[in-house]
C-alpha cells in the first residue's frame, strides 16, 4: 500500500480543516495519529493547528481533542494524564501536538514542569520556525538569519542573529526517556518514532520539521523536497535519543551545500540579493557542518 493509501484508510485527522496548501503540519498530524491509533486524547495549544483544525462547527479530529490556551498545553496534558490515572483508564494515552511558538517560547516553563514531574505525556512539537498563524513573527525556533515579520531583513539587518534554541537537548537534560526529531519528508520514519515513543511511559518529546510554504516562501508542491534538502544539508538533524543516548541518526545520502536549501526559500532571500550575506552564509554552512559532526550524519561516520 502506498503512503497515501495508508493515510486515507481509517484517518483520525480528516477533512474539515482549513490548512494552507502544502501545509507540512497538517500532513504531520495525520501521520502522527495513524501511528498512535484512536486511544489517545490530544491537547493542542493556540497556534496554526488550533486555528486551522477547529473552526467552530467543523472538526477534522476523530479523537477527543482539547485546546485551552497558548502557554499551558503541557499542564492541561498533565491534568488529563492525572485524571486518567485516578480513573484507572490506563489504556488511554495523552498526546500534545503543539507548534514551535508555544513549545520554545511561551509554554516553555510549563513544558519544563511537565518534564520534571515525569508525567506520562508524549509531547510533539511541529516546528515551522515562526509564529506562522499570525503572519510569521520570530520565535525561539526561527533559524539564524531568517527574515521574520518582527525581525525582518532590511538595510541594517540580515534577520535573526541568534541561534535556534536546542530544545531536544534541553528536553533530554530533564531525563526524558525518549527524545527524537523527525520530518514530514520521511513519513515512515515519523510514524515509526511515534509508535516507539508510545512504548515508553513518562514524558517523551518528538520535534517534527514541518516546512511551511506560506511562511518560508516556497511553492506548496515543494514541501517534502524542502524538508529533504534541509536534512541533506545538515541544518535539520534527524535522530533519536533513548534514555539520554543517541541511538539512531538519519544518514545523509549525498551532502548538499546549505545554499541549495536556503535559496529555495524567500525567508533567506536577503542573503542572496547582494554580497552582504556571504559571511552569514558561511556561518550557516558552519552550523550545518557542526550538526553533521555532532550527530554523525554522514554515511561513512561511525554511528549506525
Amino acid at each position: 500500500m502506498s503512503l497515501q493509501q495508508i493515510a486515507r484508510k481509517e484517518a483520525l485527522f480528516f477533512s474539515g480543516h482549513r490548512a494552507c496548501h502544502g501545509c507540512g503540519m497538517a500532513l504531520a498530524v495525520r501521520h502522527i495519529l495513524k501511528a498512535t491509533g484512536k486511544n489517545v486524547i490530544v491537547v493542542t495549544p493556540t497556534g496554526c493547528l488550533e486555528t486551522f483544525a477547529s473552526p467552530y462547527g467543523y472538526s477534522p479530529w476523530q479523537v477527543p481533542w482539547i485546546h485551552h490556551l497558548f502557554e499551558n498545553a503541557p499542564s492541561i496534558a498533565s491534568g488529563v494524564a492525572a485524571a486518567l490515572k485516578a480513573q484507572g483508564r490506563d489504556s488511554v494515552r495523552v498526546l500534545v501536538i503543539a507548534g514551535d511558538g508555544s513549545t520554545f517560547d511561551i509554554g516553555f516553563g510549563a513544558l519544563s514542569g511537565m518534564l520534571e514531574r515525569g508525567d506520562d505525556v508524549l509531547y510533539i512539537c511541529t516546528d515551522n520556525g515562526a509564529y506562522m498563524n499570525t503572519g510569521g513573527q520570530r520565535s525561539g525556533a526561527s533559524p539564524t538569519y531568517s527574515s521574520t515579520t518582527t525581525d525582518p531583513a532590511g538595510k541594517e539587518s540580515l534577520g535573526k542573529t541568534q541561534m535556534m534554541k536546542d530544545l531536544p537537548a534541553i528536553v533530554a537534560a530533564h531525563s526524558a526517556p525518549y527524545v527524537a526529531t523527525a520530518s514530514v519528508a520521511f513519513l515512515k520514519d515519523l510514524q515509526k518514532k511515534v509508535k516507539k515513543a508510545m512504548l515508553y511511559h513518562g514524558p517523551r518529546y518528538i520535534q517534527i520539521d514541518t516546512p511551511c510554504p506560506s511562511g518560508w516562501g516556497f511553492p506548496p508542491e515543494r514541501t517534502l523536497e524542502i524538508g529533504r534538502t534541509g536534512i541533506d544539508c545538515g541544518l535539520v538533524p534527524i535522530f533519536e535519543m533513548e534514555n539520554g543516548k543517541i541511538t539512531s541518526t538519519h544518514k545523509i545520502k549525498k551532502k548538499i551545500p546549505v545554499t541549495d536549501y536556503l535559496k529555495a526559500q524567500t525567508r533567506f532571500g536577503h542573503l542572496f540579493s547582494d554580497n552582504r550575506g556571504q559571511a552569514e552564509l558561511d556561518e550557516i554552512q558552519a552550523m550545518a557542518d557542526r550538526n553533521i559532526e555532532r550527530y554523525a550524519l554522514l554515511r561513512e561516520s561511525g554511528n549506525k
Partner: protein
Amino acid sequence: MSHIQVVEGSEAVALAVKACRPQVISAYPISPQTHIVEWIAKMIADGELDTEYVRVESEFSAASVISGASATASRSYTASSSQGLLLMTEVLYASAGLRLPFVITGVNRAISAPISIQVDHQDTISLRDSGVIQFYVESSQEVYDTHIAAFKVAEDPKILLPVMVCMDGWILTHSYERVSFMEQEEVGSFLPPFQPVNFLDVNDPKTWGSYAEDDVLMEFKYAIHEAMQYAKGRIKEIFSELAMITGRDHGGLIEAYRTEGAEVILMAMGSMAGTVKEAVDELRSQGKKVGLVKIRCYRPFPFEDIWDVIKDTKIVGVMDANFSMGSEGAVATDLKAKLCGRPDAPLVLDFITGLGGREVNKGTIREIVQKAEEVLNSGLPLHEPHWVDLNPAILP
C-alpha cells in the same frame, strides 16, 4: 452525626476538600494559602486521601492541570492567593468558557506593589468578570460548609462553571476556631460522584475549545451569563439542602443581619462581617437603627435579594476591601449600577476599608455609621468613595 473540633481555618478547608473526594488536586504554594496545600499533602502522605496531587511549577499550571483533569471527568481542586490568582486569570476565563466545574479556594491577600502578604479583596475581585462563581465567607465553619456546597454548585449540569470560595488570609486561614464536621456518608449522599455528560472520551470523541467568530461567540458568552442567572436560584436550594443536613444556615446568596427597620445598612464581605455584626449589636442597643447585609455570593451578583432587604432603608454604606483605580470600590459600583433609575433607591456611600490588612475594628465601623448619618442629616450625598482611616501625614 457530626463531630466538633477546634481546627485551623486552613485545616477546615483541607478536611472539606478531603470529604468531597476530588480525584485530582494541583497546587503551587503562596502565602497565606500554604497551610491548605500542606494539610492536603499530609493527608495524602498519611494515606488518608487517595487523589492525584500534581505539584506544579506555577499557579498558571495549577489552574491548567485541574482544567485538563476536569475536562477528563475528574473532580478537581486547587487553592491560591494574591499574585497566584492573578497569574491564573487567563486560565480561569478559558475554563469558565469551556464550562469546567472545578473548585478553587481564593485566599484573599493584597496585590503588589507594594508587596504585602496581608489581607484585602483586590485579588479575587479582579477575577469578577471571568465567569467564575465567587463566594465570600466569614468564619471557619462557613469555610467548611461552603466548600462542600461549592462542588455541588460547580457540577450542577445547568451551571458547569468554576467556583471560588474566597476566604480572608491569616484571619481565617491561620486562626483556630470551633468547627462542626459532617460525617463522610452525609457528604457522600449530598455530593454524588462527578459524572459529566461531556468529557474527553476516546469512545465518543469530541472537539473542545474550538475557534469561534462573530457568528457564535456572543452566544457562548451569553450562555455563561444565563448559567449564572440560573445559579442564583440553584445556589439557594443547594445551601438549604445542606442546612437540612447540618442544621446550620448561613443564608443564601446574602445574609441579612438585624436589617429590620434599619435606616443605615452596611454591606460587607468576608471576615469583616463578623466585626460588623458585633458593632451592629452595640449600636442597636444604643437605639441606632443599623443593620448589615453580608454578601455571600458576589458573582452572580445577588441584586434581587439585596433589594428586598435594602429597599426601605435610607442609606447603604458599602465597605469595599478593594479599589478600582481611577473609579471606586467594585461592590459599590455593582450596587449603584443596579439601583440607577429606581426613584425609591437608598443613597449609596462607598467606604474603602482594610486595604493591605489595615485594621477594621468596631471603632472603624462606628465611624462609618457616623459618616453615613452625617450624610443623611445634611442631605448632601457623597459621590466620591471615602477612604477610611487614610493617613494624610504620610501621603506624598
